[in-house]
């Protein structure tokens, strides 16, 4: 049986030193990792204070596990993405925005659109945010990882604790859902999106 290749983890040194009480190392670790964690949680939750709360909790869990961290099994960053994603999903469930069975449900999407089809503000950013917010959490997560965090399928699969094939399937459904959400606005607006993006 071939041995698993050891992963080089650029954050490992910081984590180990932080575990031994080195505050400088702890600060370096948090500065390296927190912007991305905050970005992911914000995109998923679309609420700043919720995103801060979830990010802080993820960092706290990282501290708790610091002394027992086993190098080579997983990247620290990937582990942290996983934690922040799961915490965000928990937050969405607890806010009753999505039930446990609706985390990936495509049919849920149709009902949401028909109920909230009226445009209040034609601001492009708001509309895109609104379209993203309508996605079921796991579809939203795969869009966030792929398009906002520029993560590959392998890294996304690790962060979402699933397979690469599942990520590709989820991404396909997410794009379809997003298209449906955007096209439900006035069709000309979508062309406007493309035109603005092309500038």
């Amino acid at each position, binding site marked *: 049986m071939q041995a698993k290749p050891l992963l080089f983890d650029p954050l490992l040194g910081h984590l180990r030193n*932080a575990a031994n*009480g080195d*505050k400088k190392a*702890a*600060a370096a*670790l*948090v*500065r390296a990792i*927190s*912007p991305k964690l*905050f*970005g992911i949680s*914000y*995109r998923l939750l679309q609420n*700043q204070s919720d995103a*801060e709360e979830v*990010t*802080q909790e993820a*960092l*706290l869990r990282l*501290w708790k596990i610091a002394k027992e961290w086993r190098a080579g099994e997983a990247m620290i960053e990937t582990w942290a993405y996983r934690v922040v994603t799961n915490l965000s999903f928990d937050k969405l469930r607890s806010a009753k925005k999505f039930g446990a069975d609706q985390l990936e449900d495509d049919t849920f999407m149709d009902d949401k659109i028909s109920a909230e089809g009226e445009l209040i503000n034609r601001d*492009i*950013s*708001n509309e*895109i*945010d609104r379209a*993203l917010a309508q996605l079921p959490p796991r579809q939203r997560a795969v*869009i966030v990882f792929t*398009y*906002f965090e520029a993560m590959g399928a392998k890294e996304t699969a690790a962060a979402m604790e699933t397979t690469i094939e599942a990520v590709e399937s989820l991404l396909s459904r997410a*794009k*379809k859902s*997003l*298209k449906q959400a*955007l*096209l439900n606005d006035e*069709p000309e607006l*979508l*062309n406007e*999106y*493309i035109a*603005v*993006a*092309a500038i």
Partner: protein
Amino acid sequence: MIRENIMNKDNLSRILSNASNVPECPTDKFVNAFIAQMETDNVVSANDNVKKHKLLWAGGLIAAGLVLAFGIASTNQYGNLFAKPKVTMVATQNDNVAAPTDVSNQNLADDFASQMIGYDDISTIVPVDDL
């Protein structure tokens, strides 16, 4: 045409680039909270160590006390630990001493008798402890 191709990767990337920006990450706040937690946990573990040291001291003192008590209890009146008293025979009775038949024998008897001076009862074997 655009609508059909809208969900290709490039177009979708362009569309999503118009999403609102993520607010500035409050990194300093996260750093301070992380370090505060480190300090809290290290204080807790330091207190645990102090408690352990106190317990160790107390245990050591108790053990020393027990050893001392055991030592005292095991020492006899003569200051020996586990020692049996030593027995020394000082005088013996010889019932088979023959009566002197001549002058040399009489001298032996006198000598014998002179050794017995000072003992009230020579027939008693008196064990004497070593002092």
